[in-house]
């Protein structure tokens, strides 16, 4: 085998892999590592409404032991309050500075509700210290549910680092794809781009089937229902993207092959004549 032919195969293989890496990481970059996409998914999957219910539910668990009634939790915060705080909190994952969640207004509303409740139930004797602890516990529940018990803060440095690694891989793979493309089309005129494109398509589809078979996406449960739903939705979306991009790339590669073969054979016929 001539060295040139061998080199052509090697370049075709390199292009397949780098194209696959480029598309795969581009999918990640435009989905989970894209703040706009992430927020839009939260909106689309009613995350804020679901979180509102979860926070309410988690706060109400403490009502039973407190001797108060659920009425004290009425209107102490809105879905919009949650939305703003969640967005600020998530920003840390995308390189924004950490913003402490301000619960002053919510705390004030809860204290007012408790005060009103105690005034209308004058037979109840309340200890200020226990009430302060109760209010403080409720604020902790609110913050913990937004920050997922510090998970976001813990995840932030790793997420930022991973984002930087993805950027680097995207740049390197793009350069390698461009160089391989140049070699196959300009230097080695008989280079088969279609082989690289089809290989990339096959690999993308394999990724879809591998994760679909090995990860029980529908049953992922993490932290609470709201978070679990969003993880499931994003994971499924990414897998779907791999599947459909894989199919499109594979079809595109096949059309490319077909076109190339038709052209090549036509040329030969002209020469024979």
């Amino acid at each position, binding site marked *: 085998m001539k060295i040139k032919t061998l080199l052509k195969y090697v370049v*075709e*293989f390199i292009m*397949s*892999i780098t194209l*696959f890496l480029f598309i795969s990481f581009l999918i990640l970059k435009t989905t989970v590592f894209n703040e706009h996409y992430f927020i839009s998914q939260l909106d689309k999957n009613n995350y804020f409404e679901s979180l509102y219910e979860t926070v309410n*539910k*988690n706060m*109400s*668990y*403490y009502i*039973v*032991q*407190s*001797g*108060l009634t659920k009425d004290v939790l009425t209107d102490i915060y809105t879905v919009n309050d949650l939305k703003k705080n969640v967005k600020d909190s998530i920003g840390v994952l995308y390189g924004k500075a950490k913003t402490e969640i301000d619960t002053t207004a919510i705390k004030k509303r809860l204290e007012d509700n408790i005060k009103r409740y*105690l005034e209308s139930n004058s037979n*109840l*004797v*309340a*200890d200020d*210290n*226990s*009430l*302060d*602890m*109760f209010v*403080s*516990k409720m604020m902790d529940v609110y913050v913990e549910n937004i920050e997922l018990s510090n998970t976001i803060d813990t995840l932030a440095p790793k997420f930022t680092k991973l984002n930087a690694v993805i950027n680097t891989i995207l740049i390197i793979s793009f350069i390698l794809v461009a160089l391989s493309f140049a070699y196959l089309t300009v230097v080695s005129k008989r280079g*088969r781009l*279609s*082989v*690289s494109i*089809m*290989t990339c398509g*096959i*690999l993308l589809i*394999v990724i879809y089937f591998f994760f679909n078979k*090995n*990860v*029980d996406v529908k*049953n*992922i*449960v*993490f932290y609470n229902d709201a978070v679990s739903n969003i*993880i499931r939705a994003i994971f499924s979306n990414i897998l779907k993207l791999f599947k459909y991009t894989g199919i499109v790339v594979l079809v595109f*590669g*096949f059309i490319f*092959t*077909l076109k*190339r*073969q*038709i052209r*090549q*054979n036509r040329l*030969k*016929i002209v020469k024979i004549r």
Partner: protein
Amino acid sequence: MLNKVKKIIKGIAIEIAFSLFFSSFFIFSVYFLFRDKIYNSIFLINRLIVVEKNTETEDKEISFDSVKKRLVHYPYYGEVWATIRIPKVEINAVVYHGDTLDILDKGVGHFSGSYFPAEGGTVIIDGHNSPSQFGRIPGLDVGDNIIIEAKYGTFTYEVTEGKIMKATELEKINIQDDREELVLYTCYPISAIGYKTDRYVIYAKLVGEEYEN
């Protein structure tokens, strides 16, 4: 014309074969080089999957092996497996497996890290301090009976001690594995308003056991 078509098909087949060879070569290379790392990552992702219903036991009846002194099939997390009756203070509550706040909202909960009645270790059950749960347990005295009617038998315990401890001290309750002991606890003071940092704890010993056939 036919020759031309044959050549086109052959060309396409060769390119598809190359694509399959390249992708298989890459997949096998990755598999042999990073097999452990890949499966570890998959394992970590799958650990996020919390089995709320243990699929192995969900449809099987909870029963007791008296020789091994162990349940044959354990209840799944969140399943009702017993009723607790305390005649002296008129408590009659269903017992769930697990004691998350979600479960305690429905009834009293059995701490999943503790033993089941008749297994010969510490059985821990906790509940809210409402009258329908454990709100009246401070009214118990030494010698009072607590009856657990489980799906596999009925077990009678006798109160040996009642005491108040800080919520932060609950971890001091040792889970014994050499003697049967029932521990019940609830938030304390019962009638106070606000967040309660104390717990009222009842200790009881096993005095009677009766198994279902």
